[in-house]
C-alpha cells in the first residue's frame, strides 16, 4: 500500500535505489515537484540561472518602486513601503554605518543594500517547496564575494594610494632586536596579505556551506520516511515493519517544520552576516586599525 504513495521507481544502481541527498539542492535543468511531476527547463537555462535572474528582477522592481515613492519626501505609507524601507534602513543603520563608518557608510549603502536584499531573496527561494536556493552554489557566492573583494581593495587603494594601502597590511611591532622585529613584521605582513584573499573566500564558503547544508539536512530528515517505507530505498531493519512509517513520518515532519523555521532565520542571518562582514572589511580597508 505504501509503495503507491511514492509513485514511480527511483534510479537504481546495482539493484538498490541510489540516494542523492544533494539532488534537489544543486543546480539542474529541471524543477522536480514530487517524482511524477517534473518541469524541464530548456537549455542553456537552469534552475539557478532562472532564480538568480528572478531575484535580481524582484529586488530591482521592489527598490525602484520604493525609490519612486520615497522621492516625494513623504513619510512611508502602507505595509510594503514600510517593509522595504525598514529593510533599507536596517542595512544603513545596522550594517553600512557601523561597518564602514558613519562618514563613508552611506556611500556604500547602494552596494550593501542590494547585496543584502539579493542574498536574502536567493536564500528565501530555497524555503519554498520545490524551489532552489541559488546561494547554495559556491560559484554564485564566490562571484558575490569577488565583487566585494574588488570593492574592498579598490576602496582601500582610493583612500591610501597603492603604496599606502599595501603598507596598511604591515603591522607595527615594537621589539628592540631589529632582526626579530623585521622578521615578525614580514611574516605577519605575509599573513595579512593572505588574509585579504582569505576574507573573500570565507565570505563565499560560509554562505554557500550554510545554504547547502541546511537544505540537505532538511531533505535527509524528510527522506527518513522513504528509508522506512519505500521498498526502493528501504533499509534492512524496516523491511516488513510497516508500523515504522507511522512513527518516523510524524517525527520527520515535525523535525522538518522546526528546522525550516531555523532555516528561515538562517536565510536572514546569513544575508546579514555576508553583508555585515563585507561592510567591516570595506571599513578596515579604508580605516585600518594600525
Amino acid at each position: 500500500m505504501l509503495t503507491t504513495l511514492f509513485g514511480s521507481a527511483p534510479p537504481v544502481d546495482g539493484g538498490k535505489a541510489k540516494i542523492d541527498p544533494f539532488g534537489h539542492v544543486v543546480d539542474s535543468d529541471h524543477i522536480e515537484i514530487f517524482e511524477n511531476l517534473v518541469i524541464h527547463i530548456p537549455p542553456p537555462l537552469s534552475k539557478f540561472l532562472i532564480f538568480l535572474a528572478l531575484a535580481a528582477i524582484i529586488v530591482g522592481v521592489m527598490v525602484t518602486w520604493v525609490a519612486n515613492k520615497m522621492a516625494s519626501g513623504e513619510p512611508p505609507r502602507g505595509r510594503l513601503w514600510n517593509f522595504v524601507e525598514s529593510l533599507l534602513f536596517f542595512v544603513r543603520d545596522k550594517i553600512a554605518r557601523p561597518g564602514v563608518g558613519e562618514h563613508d557608510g552611506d556611500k556604500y549603502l547602494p552596494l550593501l543594500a542590494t547585496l543584502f536584499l539579493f542574498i536574502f531573496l536567493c536564500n528565501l527561494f530555497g524555503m519554498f517547496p520545490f524551489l532552489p536556493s541559488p546561494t547554495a552554489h559556491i560559484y554564485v557566492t564566490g562571484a558575490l564575494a569577488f565583487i566585494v573583494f574588488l570593492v574592498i581593495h579598490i576602496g582601500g587603494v582610493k583612500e591610501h594610494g597603492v603604496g599606502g594601502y599595501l603598507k596598511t597590511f604591515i603591522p607595527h611591532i615594537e621589539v628592540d632586536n631589529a632582526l626579530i622585529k623585521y622578521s615578525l613584521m614580514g611574516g605577519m605582513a605575509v599573513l595579512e596579505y593572505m588574509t585579504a584573499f582569505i576574507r573573500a573566500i570565507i565570505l563565499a564558503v560560509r554562505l554557500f556551506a550554510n545554504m547547502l547544508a541546511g537544505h540537505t539536512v532538511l531533505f535527509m530528515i524528510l527522506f527518513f520516511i522513504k528509508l522506512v517505507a519505500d521498498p526502493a530505498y528501504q533499509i534492512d531493519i524496516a523491511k516488513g515493519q510497516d508500523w515504522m512509517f507511522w512513527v518516523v513520518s510524524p517525527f520527520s515532519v515535525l523535525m522538518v517544520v522546526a528546522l525550516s523555521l531555523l532555516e528561515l532565520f538562517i536565510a536572514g542571518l546569513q544575508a546579514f552576516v555576508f553583508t555585515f562582514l563585507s561592510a567591516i572589511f570595506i571599513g578596515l580597508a579604508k580605516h585600518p586599525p594600525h
Partner: protein
Amino acid sequence: MRSILPVLAVAVVLLTAPAALAASGGDDKGGGLAFLQLHRYDLGIFTLIVFGLLVLVLSKTAWPKITEGLAKREASILGARDEAQKVRAEAEELRARLQKESAEAQDKIRALLDEARRDADALRATEKEAGVKEAQAERERAKREIEAAKDTALDEIYRTAVDLATNLSAKTLGRSMTADDHRKLLDESLAELKQSPRLA
C-alpha cells in the same frame, strides 16, 4: 513607471544571457565532490553579470531618488522640529512674560491694598481726633454757656438783692438815693461779692 522599464529591460537581458554563457551540462560525474558542480563556471559569470547590472541600474535609477527623498524628508522633519522649537520658545517667552505681568499685577494689588489700609487707618485716626476735638469743643462751649448762665443768674440775683437792700436802706434812712448813688452802691457790692471766696 518609467524608471522600472530599465529594470525590466535588464531582466529580459538576464533571462536570455545564459544562452551566450552556456557552459557545460549538469551530468558530469566528478567523484565525491560532484555535488559542488565545480564545472559550472557559467553560474559565477552569470551572477557577476546579474548582480553587477542590478547594482548599476539601481545606482543610476533608484538610489538617487532614495537619497533625494531622504534628504527631503530630513529637511521636512528638521523644518518641523525647528518650527516646533521656535513655537515652544515663543510659548515659553509668552508664559514668562505673563508670569512676570501676573507677578507685577499681584504686587500692584498688594500695594493698593496696603495703601488703602493705610488710608483707612489714617482716616480712622483723623476722624477719631476730630471727634475728640469736637467733643472737647462742645464740652468747652457747654461749660462756657453754663458759666455765662451762672454769671447772668448771679448778676440778676445781686441786682435784685442790691435793689432790695437799697430799698430797705432808703426806707430805713428816710431818704432817697439818686441814680448815681444807686449805681455806685451796686458796683461796689458786686465787686465785693466777686471777691468773696465762696463765689469765686
